């Protein structure tokens, strides 16, 4: 997509060396986005976690064993968005104004084709009817619509917060929102500030600078999906494990 000063391209850089796996981001996301409470039979493959923290290690025994925690969310793929092109009824929409890939739950048929298309496992299906226990409905966020049984949902960079920021700016007579006015729940709640969020189209933004850093990489770069979530680590084994350009370059130098 064309990078345009007027059209932001929201993205993230997640510093794996800072993430301690506390899971605050997952919790904050669940609260912000009205994720339904888990049913008793739900497990790690049927539960809904728009933001989810994975533990990645270097497969070596103690004392060489190293691990990082990797928060995984929707990467808002910028190029030939795999989930958008496959949806049979256009329930997925790449928003050209922000670069966010939106999901339309009321149009979703629940065919789950988008879930097979996504290589980042960012999409989750409502295998159960969402149910809130009596009294819990008071904890719901009024800015985010709840979903129904049998539809797919995923992270949308807390789009409700973007709408709220735009509304606030409009009240104050502004068109554009400042960077600090819009931040997703996960980035906001991270205690180690591992998640950086901002406008990748703005060359001066922090995320933009971090994304260009030599230690930053994206997952499955070679697929060509142009994800807008970058990861960063200064540990060489991480680059090796993730098969990044840096590790490839290092291998070439070694053989050189």
């Amino acid at each position: 997509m064309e990078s345009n000063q007027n059209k932001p391209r929201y993205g993230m850089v997640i510093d794996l060396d800072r993430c301690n796996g506390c899971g605050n981001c997952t919790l904050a996301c669940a609260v912000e986005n009205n994720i339904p409470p888990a049913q008793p039979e739900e497990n790690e493959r049927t539960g809904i976690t728009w933001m989810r923290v994975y533990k990645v290690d270097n497969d070596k025994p103690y004392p060489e064993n190293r691990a990082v925690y990797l928060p995984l969310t929707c990467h808002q793929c910028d190029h030939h968005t795999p989930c958008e092109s496959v949806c049979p009824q256009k329930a997925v929409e790449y928003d050209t104004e922000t670069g966010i890939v939106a999901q339309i739950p009321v149009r979703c048929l629940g065919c789950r084709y988008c879930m097979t298309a996504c290589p980042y496992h960012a999409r989750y299906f409502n295998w159960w009817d969402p149910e809130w226990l009596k009294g819990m409905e008071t904890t719901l966020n009024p800015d985010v619509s709840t979903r129904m049984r049998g539809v797919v949902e995923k992270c949308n960079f807390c789009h409700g917060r973007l709408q709220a920021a735009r509304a606030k700016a409009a009240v104050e007579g502004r068109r554009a929102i400042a960077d600090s006015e819009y931040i997703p729940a996960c980035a906001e709640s991270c205690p180690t500030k591992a998640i950086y969020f901002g406008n990748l189209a703005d060359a001066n933004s922090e995320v933009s600078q971090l994304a260009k850093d030599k230690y930053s990489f994206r997952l499955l770069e070679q697929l060509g999906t142009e994800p807008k979530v970058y990861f960063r680590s200064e540990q060489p084994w991480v680059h090796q494990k993730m098969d990044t350009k840096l590790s490839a370059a290092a291998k070439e130098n070694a053989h050189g």
Partner: protein
Amino acid sequence: MDKQYIARGVSRMSIKKFGLWMLPWSIMLILGAYAVYLCLIKGLNQTNMDNRFAFGLWIYLDLTVIALGAGAFFTGFLLYILKKKELKAVINSAVVIGFICYSGAVGVLMVDVGQPLRAWFTFWHPNVHSMLTEVTFCITCYLLVLAIEYVPVILKNRKIKQFSSMLVFEHELHKLIIVFAAVGTFLSFFHQGSLGGLYGVLIGRPFAFRPALGIWPTTFFLFIISAAAAGPCFILLTTALASKLSHKHLVTKEVYQMLGKISGSILIFYVLLKTIDTLIWINSTSPSLGFSAASFYKFSGFGTWIMFTEIVLCGLIPALILLNKKMRMHFAWLITAASLACVGIVINRFVMTIQTLALPTLPFDQFLSYVPSWQEVATFLAVLAYGMLVYSLSFRYLTLFPQERELESL
């Protein structure tokens, strides 16, 4: 007791025996109906599908029965458009089988989606870039065509054709059958292809992704050709099975030979294309996406033996048998080859659906396993039972095999 509904010149088992035959299938159908009820009422948590295995047994079943049901359109094409008159002997049976396969697939699909009542949304907001839209449109139209082709077979039932209006309508409908055969061929070409395209476009699944020929991935064409090859084989097998179970000669040897020969020629062509496609995938497509082809086969139970079984044992070998006249004339070899060919298609659809989803995509993913729940299996068996019931009723009361009467008197 029901002789007045059974055609002249053919014998059928007593209605008591027939009832006994239908009983186990009816029970299977009822069990399946209960499983469907559970899934519709309680939700898809009744299955063992999950966020990693978003497609499971049902989607695999859909793809397989639609590939095997391709015999309906292909036999129609060969008979009405290429004028291969011998196939008149099996066209009615082929239409019924096709109808069973497609209606069963659509039925299962309605349970598989999370919101079946929203099925019409695909028509209202079609996404022309999505293969699934193409599949939905084509299969709906084609099911309609199959139903229209089934109607004349029903109208020629002994009792029904006594009503002049029914007979006259059947006559007029049959005069225009070539239109339906042509439309059916056109639709089948596209939906068999786009079922393959479903997986070929998945850039996120390098195991399944294939380069494009025009606007379609190579799997589009491979699926059409494999369906055209498997179709006649399945017709051959179902005819032989019906023959065996009813202890009758239903078609002449020439019909079996023709089906086998056509299938063999298409199958060998398919094996050639599939081999070329696989080699390109191994050497170019997969590595360019950052995955070596070998890396997909290092998981226990899912080694390269699957690939060789699919292409060689269940592709090349049956093709060679079917093309060899001496072996083809030998009934046991013919049935073996036809079975192997169908198994090859079954494996191919399995590889594209289940194996694709089991394989890891992210560097820290695991290889996953999935076992269908009893509700999924019961639904699958319900489709089988439905097929047996519909086919048995059709075989008893309708003329599925026009040659049967002649062969019975010999």
